């Protein structure tokens, strides 16, 4: 097969029908550009929303759940082993929420190769005193360097510096909602009442905003030591161990393993955030579906123009066949014709799509709930462009195949004798 001759004939056929070919190519361009813009934007949005939740939740969180004793007295009796026991008289034991032996657990975890880092945490419900009113809230005592490494807390601090928590004792960072309610700002001192009645004064060194009102209205951060001091506990007191793994997919298995190994409660990110995953998936499916639909429409455009060309060029096909082109040569002429239209349109589509995403990427997008976002999020990924051009090649090949087969079956005798 003489490829350059076949390509040359295809190109000349396109040139003879430049306008229609251009329109067919523009169809592909439009489809691909829309696909790129849509997928990049949707995935940018997905990453943003996932980040909002997933980046802030540990891959595995270990804690002590308050639960009733698994061994109720009646199950210990031999008389009732075959009975359905529903009498449970032993209430949950008050072990507190402290994780026992937390130091050695952390030491073991830090040696695990799957783990990026471990961040211990103390959470305690407290009341913030504002005049005569007490506002319920939560204090998170964090190990500042570890927490910053795992969850980059500093990106949610809109005012002040998170490292002041570690360097200055008796300091706190409070949520924006809280600061607005209590009319306080950086440098002010607030008073906190613990559940046990203790009263502590803390200096505000920062304001945080996560973007979820419920959280910003109750959340506050202190250093681990400050939190332990507020609660009147010793230096080993830890209520949560947060773990980030090298790959989030390992989380369910890891959580299961730690549960039995340390006899502790452990929850993985997938279980904790299952509804977010579903949302992301649905958005991806929608953007791909729209993109593919556009391309199929473009494919019909190519199919049409090829059919038209074949009817117009019956004579040319007949003489090519008479002078030594086989059916498959003719088929390849029309397939390459379709591919030229598809690839040209597709490449332009990638370019237009890229420009579109650039435009979307600079449109201001400011919302009170997302303080770190200034413009619409766009995910630039080579994979989308590769998928886009593959789609273009695939649909145009399919669209070209049927007319090309028809052209290859044209009987030159019928055409020539019909004249």
């Amino acid at each position, binding site marked *: 097969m003489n490829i350059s001759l076949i390509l040359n004939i295809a190109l000349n056929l396109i040139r003879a029908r430049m306008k229609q070919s251009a329109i067919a190519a523009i169809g592909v361009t439009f489809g691909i550009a829309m696909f790129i813009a849509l997928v990049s934007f949707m995935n940018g949005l997905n990453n943003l929303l996932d980040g909002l939740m997933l980046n802030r939740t540990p891959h595995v969180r270990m804690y002590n759940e308050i639960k009733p004793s698994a061994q109720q007295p009646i199950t210990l009796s031999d008389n009732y082993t075959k009975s359905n026991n529903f009498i449970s008289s032993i209430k949950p034991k008050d072990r507190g929420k402290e994780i026992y032996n937390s130091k050695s657990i952390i030491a073991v975890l830090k040696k695990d190769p799957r783990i990026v880092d471990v961040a211990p945490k103390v959470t305690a419900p407290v009341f913030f005193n504002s005049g005569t009113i007490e506002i319920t809230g939560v204090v998170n005592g964090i190990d500042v360097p570890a927490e910053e490494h795992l969850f980059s807390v500093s990106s949610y601090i809109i005012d002040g510096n998170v490292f002041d928590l570690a360097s200055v004792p008796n300091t706190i960072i409070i949520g924006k909602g809280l600061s607005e309610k209590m009319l306080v700002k950086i440098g002010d001192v607030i008073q906190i009442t613990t559940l046990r009645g203790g009263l502590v004064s803390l200096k505000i060194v920062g304001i945080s905003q996560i973007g979820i009102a419920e959280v910003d209205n109750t959340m506050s951060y202190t250093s681990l030591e400050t939190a332990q001091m507020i609660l009147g506990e010793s230096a080993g007191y830890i209520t949560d161990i947060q773990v980030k793994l090298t790959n989030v997919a390992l989380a369910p298995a890891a959580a299961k393993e730690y549960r039995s190994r340390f006899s502790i409660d452990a929850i993985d990110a997938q279980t904790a955030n299952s509804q977010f995953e579903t949302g992301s998936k649905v958005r991806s499916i929608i953007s791909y579906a729209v993109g593919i639909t556009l391309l199929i429409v473009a494919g019909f455009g190519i199919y049409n123009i090829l059919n038209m060309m074949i009817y117009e060029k019956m004579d040319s096909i007949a*003489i090519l066949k008479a*002078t030594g*082109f*086989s059916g498959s040569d003719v088929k390849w002429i029309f397939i390459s014709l379709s591919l030229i239209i598809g690839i040209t349109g597709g490449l332009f589509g990638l370019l237009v799509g890229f420009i579109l995403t650039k435009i979307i990427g600079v449109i201001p997008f400011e919302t009170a709930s997302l303080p770190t976002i200034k413009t619409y999020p766009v995910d630039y990924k080579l994979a989308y462009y590769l998928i886009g051009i593959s789609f273009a090649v695939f649909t145009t090949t399919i669209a070209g195949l049927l007319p090309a087969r028809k052209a290859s079956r044209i009987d030159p005798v019928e055409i020539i004798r019909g004249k």
Partner: protein
Amino acid sequence: MTLRNVLETKKINKYFFDPVKFQVLSDITFSVKQGEFVSVVGKSGCGKSTLLYILSTMDTDFEGELFINGEPLTNNSDKDLARIRNEYIGFVFQFHYLLNEYNVLKNVMIPGIKLAKYSYEEIEHRAMEHLRTLDMHSQALKSPNQLSGGQKQRVAIARALINDPLIVMGDEPTGNLDKKNSDMVFDIFNAIVQEKKQTMLIVTHDADFAQRTHRIIEMADGKIISETNTLHRRSAPTDITT
């Protein structure tokens, strides 16, 4: 000097099935030697064009045997037949079938590029030579639709000759031309036969044209009814009516 058969048929039968079974050709057996100038004549509907298209390998739906250059052509693939047409057969039709997308020179070159026996430059040179012998070289870079009917037919002849085919087949090549242009086409064919010893097989109903060829095959109702060799009495006055 014994000349080999470039074309030979044995008992070719062909039927049309639409609307009813009808035998178009029955037991066509004949052969054409290299360098012969043969014309096939007959009333319209006698099957002469049908025969030509079978001989051209474009119509494969027939019974019997066909040999081109001694090679039997039965059960060959579409690709093989296309190669045989490309290499051994040149076509001139009533209509010129030039591609308007290409200029005259490129039209002549395409079958040559397809065969790829020579380099592109060599093919271009040969195409130019063919155009020169047909006195068309000054039009080489024009588009086919800028040419007159006679000129187009000359370009089509140049295209048929580009691969130095064993045999040139024509289906009413002068059918659309006036007397002057018909004479010119005949002279070109005659010159090719004389000078290059190529073979001509021309289906025509132009009696004048047929009279001047070397051998006339007359057909009626799908059969060959007579063969006349006109070569011996070329100088003598003829009274053959067709």
